[in-house]
């Protein structure tokens, strides 16, 4: 049904990316859309000037609430990643700044040669290592019981600060 429609409307642009949903992931639908755009930006699937799929196309293909798509697009715009042009659509404005590749490599090396080595020597298996690391990370941040929105704000602050 959607395919027919797209054929009938030649002005419908070829979408720059495809969204998919994981209903079981527990991540709110709109955040899944936001993450997928950010991910596509990091990997270079989306570049400056690309148009995001139109709201009605996303709605028809995923059969989700239009408000969810609008919320995701608003969120991306607030982060400065996209810009909405009335009557035209939503376009990519910037890429999220990430930690530099060199820095990532050196961090990774220090983790592998240092702490991970000690953990293996102490006899921790993979699951034990992950559990311990996650627990330490939580202690490190020493967070209060955060609600989802507080966590979201914290995430946005991190993105904003980067």
């Amino acid at each position, binding site marked *: *049904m*959607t395919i*027919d*429609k797209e054929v009938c409307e030649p002005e419908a642009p070829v979408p720059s990316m495809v969204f998919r*949903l994981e*209903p079981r992931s*527990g991540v*709110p*639908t709109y955040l899944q859309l936001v993450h997928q755009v950010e991910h596509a930006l990091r990997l270079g699937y989306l570049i400056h000037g690309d148009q995001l799929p139109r*709201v*009605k196309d996303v*709605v*028809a*293909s*995923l*059969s*989700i*609430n*239009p*408000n*969810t798509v609008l919320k995701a697009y608003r969120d991306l715009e607030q982060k400065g990643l996209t810009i909405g042009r009335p009557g035209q659509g939503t376009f990519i404005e910037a890429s999220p700044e990430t930690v530099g590749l060199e820095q990532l490599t050196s961090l990774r090396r220090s983790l592998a040669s240092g702490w991970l080595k000690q953990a293996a020597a102490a006899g921790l298996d993979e699951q034990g290592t992950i559990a311990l690391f996650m627990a330490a990370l*939580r*202690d490190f941040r020493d967070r*209060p*019981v*955060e*609600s*989802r*929105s*507080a966590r979201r704000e914290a995430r946005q602050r991190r993105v904003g600060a980067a």
Partner: protein
Amino acid sequence: MNVVETSGLAKRYRRTWALRDCNLSVPAGRIVALVGPNGAGKTTLLHCAVGLCTATNGNITVLGDLGAGSLEALERVAFVAQDAPLHKYLSVRSMVAVARNLNPRFDQAQAEERLRGLEIPPDRKVGKLSGGQQAQLALTLALARDPDLLVLDEPLARLDPLARHDFMALVMAGVAASGFSVIFSSHVVSELERFADYLIVLANGRVQMVGDIDDLLTSHAVLSGPAEESDLVGEQFTVVQTRKATRHAEILVRTTGESRLPSGWESDDVSLEELVLAYLRDPSASMLPGPLATNELEVNEVAR
């Protein structure tokens, strides 16, 4: 504007109360899921909203201040009943003609175009269509009335997964194009999150939980930690549900975002399904955040 507003709404069938003391105000522009177990009063509430039954007590208005079932309201509210009632022995084309002749506001061209897009043959008898196509036809007829409020009673219950997807895609595309409000009932909780952004949970004829879905999820969390400290932690929060083993406990709580957890405790997001089931299991727990400031008084009354 509220698309549906009730105050003290109650409905009795002979000796059974199908709805009791029901106070709601549902803001416009939302896609509202009405959830509850069988016999909770979902259909009764929807029937009251579209004017198919009259309340025993209390008031219900739709689309601002129109009386439910009044002529103005009938013109702007479209309803698809549980069994998608259509005339089985008519052709699809005649069914469209019937709907056009029965409704003052009916866009026949739009209906025909939509049916073409759905590849429903106009000459086929309605009874020969698949269940999914019959549901789509009923929905197409409802959408052609260009409603401000679309009410769907258990639209997904009889459809297979693919037909569900196509049916809801049709609803969502309609909302994206025309911006009408939707209220649909369902007893399947798992699929709601992608469609609905507003939730009403009914149990035993009473409103158990109502509010914006994101707000509801944000304000709840699952805490997990050692069982012996669970009472202590429970005192800091409003506990909805506690599940305890000998050493380990999981508590579903309403959070404020300020309290700190003792070490050894973890906080997790709650899924919509978990949340709804928890509130349905414990009829004494009720979550009624006022969706609008004007509604605060009524909400407090229910909370008491």
